């Protein structure tokens, strides 16, 4: 596969220029990944403003720590990890206490998985954003990013069992929310 070329420069050349402090190269790199990374930020945030803060913080880190990037791996993967770590730290900084939501609040009748496939990306993101912070983090990390429960427990500094439990609760909550959505629609 031929390398992606932006303004006549490959990603590798752009990264080299970024290391020299070339603002144009930094902007090109930013434009290359901004849309995809903003989507990640939105998924990890409760609302858009929070996502924008994470997005900007993370990209500043990307450019200030660019020298630490080892070119043996994927740059996109590296940026994504920074975004996720920034989102996790941002969540940990929140002074609000964790929301305790028991499963007894949910009804037994919930939507099946096939209902989710009918939803658009924006609707899915809205569903994720509506989850409590802890559930949202675990669900994003496990379901979308593909982290294991062990990795999640280390990232979020929680027990593995907590990660499993929160994932289960997140799924049920998503099903319940979709069920409510469809009931309204009907």
């Amino acid at each position, binding site marked *: 596969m031929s390398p992606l070329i932006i303004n006549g420069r490959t990603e590798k050349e752009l990264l080299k220029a*970024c*290391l*020299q*402090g070339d*603002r144009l190269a*930094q*902007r090109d790199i*930013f*434009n290359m990944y*901004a*849309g*995809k990374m*903003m*989507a990640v*930020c*939105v*998924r990890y945030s409760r609302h*858009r403003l929070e*996502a*924008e803060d994470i*997005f*900007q913080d993370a*990209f*500043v880190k990307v*450019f*200030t*720590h*660019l*020298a630490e990037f080892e070119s043996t791996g994927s740059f996109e993967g590296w940026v994504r990890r920074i975004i996720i770590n920034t989102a996790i730290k941002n969540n940990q900084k929140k002074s609000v206490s964790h929301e305790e939501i028991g499963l007894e609040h949910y009804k037994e009748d919930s939507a099946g*998985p*096939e209902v*989710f*496939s009918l*939803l658009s*990306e924006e609707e*899915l*993101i809205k569903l*994720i954003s509506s989850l409590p912070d802890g559930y949202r983090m675990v*669900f994003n990390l*496990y*379901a*979308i990013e*593909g982290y294991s429960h062990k990795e999640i427990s280390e990232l979020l500094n929680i027990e593995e069992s907590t990660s499993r439990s929160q994932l289960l609760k997140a*799924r049920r909550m*998503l*099903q319940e929310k979709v069920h409510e959505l469809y009931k309204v629609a009907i």
Partner: protein
Amino acid sequence: MNNIDKIFRNKLEHHHADIPDKAWANIEARLNESPKPKNNFFPVGMMLLGLFLVSFGGYLSMNDDHLFGKIPASSSMDNRQQNRMASTTSVIPEVSKEISFSQINLSTENKQIRFLNAEKPVPAVSEAKQRTTTTLYKSPDNSFSQSQAEAESMPSTGMSPERMLIEQTSNNIKTEIFRQHTSEISYLDNALNNNKLKFFRSIRLPSIFAKDKPVKACPFVYDYQNKSVDVYVSHDYSPKQLSANDSELNTHIDMRNQTEKALYSFSAGFRFGYNLSYKWNLHTGFNYSQTNEKFEYIDPESNQTRIIIIKDYVYQNGKIIDSIITQETVTVPGTTKLKVFNKYRSYDIPVLARYTLFANHHLSLSAMAGVYLNVATRQKGMILDLDNKTPVEIYVKEKQDNNLFKTQLGVSGYASFSMAYHLTSNVDFLLEPNVRFQPESLSSNHYAVSQKMNTFGVSTGLRYKF
């Protein structure tokens, strides 16, 4: 991963969201505030530079003669080779010109040619190099096969058989070179060494730093620094010499010596230095000295005068109607103990010459001598008067006829042995045992007892060279 997870992943994994307005502008503004990202190549470059400097410093320390323009003695050459080199340089200068620096590193390979083709006439250097490559790698003859067999029988050293063969062959050749004294070998060997010598001569330190400057004095490796500033503190001891022409005053001198004890003294100052010539430096600046003494005197015949006031009352019918006051003076014999710390202060301008005796990369040793031009002296404290009974103050504010001490002492001599340890290229730590001779008497000319003070001290300080 269940079905819900899969749906979310498939739909959101590569999802794009709208980029917030002015996001890049905000990031750029924050990047401008934050320090510039480190350049990956900077530490590597610094390491290479450090490695080069260490190697270069090591080379110079092993071959100090390079700094002074002498011909270095190559460790790889014996005396015969050096003699041959000298003779070859004069006979065949055109060959030296033909050999480039890159070819110098190939001297071992050139020697191999002579071994493998000893029966053939000596070719030109470039031709010889080419032939070596062909002989060893493309068309091995009998000698190559023999050497290869030997190489394969050697224990493994991590080298390839070809490389081992070359190493072994090289060693054999070196032995052979010293055994056979053919004129051809001498020709090549000397020509190559001569060029190596020329190369190292060309990178001598003085040629880098001292463009058109004459060679300056110590420290030799930093001879381009011909100015310096010293800041120092000297820890002194100043014994006192009292003398008088009148022998009757010997008692008084004894009393003075008994009552006045030398204490820790010090001097401090700064001086500028300038390299006058190869090893000579001139220094001048300002020096402050303070000599401390303790004056302790017990007057055994000291009398204390006491006034006694007596008040008598006149009574009448049990009431006080008047009072009478009478006063008496009583003298009580006793002793008086006096303890005073005397200070002799001196403000001087040193004018000193320093001669460098020895210097290397770490240390320089110098002898220093000169004069201290006294600007002013001040004294404070007490001494015994000539009557040996009365302590008198020696405090002098300004020049007056009745002062016990002078306010200006003229010239005194100074000598020291200066050791400078090079902390950095610009900063030296100084350790300087010194002595200062005071020919002029501190006491006034009209005072019967002459007082001189010679000072012995150890000075410590820093020298900044620029």
